């Protein structure tokens, strides 16, 4: 199997092995394959969100009730989460975030750059641990470490899926 094609499937299997039962997401091209796998799985509640911060609160509620959750987003979505991350930080809720990057490599749309370029500093300010994957081979190990950190230590762990990994967005059809 082609590693470049299958990394979203490996991410999905990592979530399944971790016992993730709720997945919140704002639709995103980089996560489309993972979202499709989650939607097709009867043991996962897939929750489409209107904004990413809803997912931070969803994950907190899930943990209160004994479920593990994951939150999928694009880099721009992190900016929508910043105050809501106080919930995870103050109460030490596990929060596993899988973030696809825009605005860092071969970006055609300059509007993606301001947020894309401050993703890692913002995560650090919010006391999140960062696990970056720049090649398909790095995805599974980054995700495994993030799972361990989030649920093992009741912490915020973010897997950063680089724009190079996801590939260039096609603008003309």
């Amino acid at each position, binding site marked *: 199997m082609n590693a470049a094609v299958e990394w979203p499937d490996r991410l999905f299997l990592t979530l399944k092995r971790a016992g993730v039962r709720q997945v919140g997401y704002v639709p995103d091209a980089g996560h489309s394959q993972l979202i499709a796998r989650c939607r097709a799985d009867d043991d996962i509640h897939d929750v489409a969100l209107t904004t990413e911060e*809803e997912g931070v*609160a*969803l994950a907190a*509620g899930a943990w209160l009730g*004994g479920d593990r959750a994951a939150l999928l987003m694009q880099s721009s979505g992190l900016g929508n989460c910043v105050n809501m991350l106080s919930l995870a930080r103050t109460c030490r809720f596990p929060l596993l975030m899988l973030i696809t990057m825009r605005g860092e490599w071969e970006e055609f749309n300059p509007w993606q750059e301001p947020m894309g370029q401050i993703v890692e500093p913002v995560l650090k300010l919010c006391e999140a641990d960062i696990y970056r994957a720049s090649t398909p081979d790095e995805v599974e190990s980054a995700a495994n470490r993030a799972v361990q950190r989030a649920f093992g230590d009741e912490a915020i762990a973010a897997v950063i899926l680089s724009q190079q990994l996801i590939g260039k967005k096609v603008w003309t059809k």
Partner: protein
Amino acid sequence: MNLERRAAMAALVKDRGDLLVVPGLGSTTWDLAAAGDDPRNFYLWGAMGGAAMVGLGLALAQPQRRVAVITGDGEMLMGLGSLATIGVKKPANLAVIVFDNGVYGETGMQPSHTQSGVDLVATAKACGFPQCHDVEDEIGLAALAARLQNFAETLFARVRISAEEPPRVLPERDGVAIKNRFRAALGLKA
């Protein structure tokens, strides 16, 4: 004559059974504390706009139990999109109740949008909540309290309360402690 908020909260949780309750940042957290502390209350002291979504995650995780989010109009307006999210997901065991006084009581009684005609009951209906109630009096309140014992589809209710700020009753504010005792009350590892 609108309902008095403390009495309204007390009426809703008096015979709560195994109801799990998530109040919103601010006055509804004080109202719930005033009605009597319980480990199955997850008090929010922050995360404005997040109460309904905490309720959704909890309701999906605990399908055998009923969950009531009881929050204020200002808090609900900040998370208005979550009504759409919940309306799509429709968990049968989740109730979202908004204590609506048309003002931001915590910050000096500034008017909220509901005072200018933004209708949260109509919003919930439009978002697909199968049950929507507008509670204006003691009879409606008693009916809502009874419904909280046996509702079987996603429920929204606005409770019209008067704009007054009774003395604060402050519950535990250590978030880790609130979380751990809540989980322990459900038999989960703290």
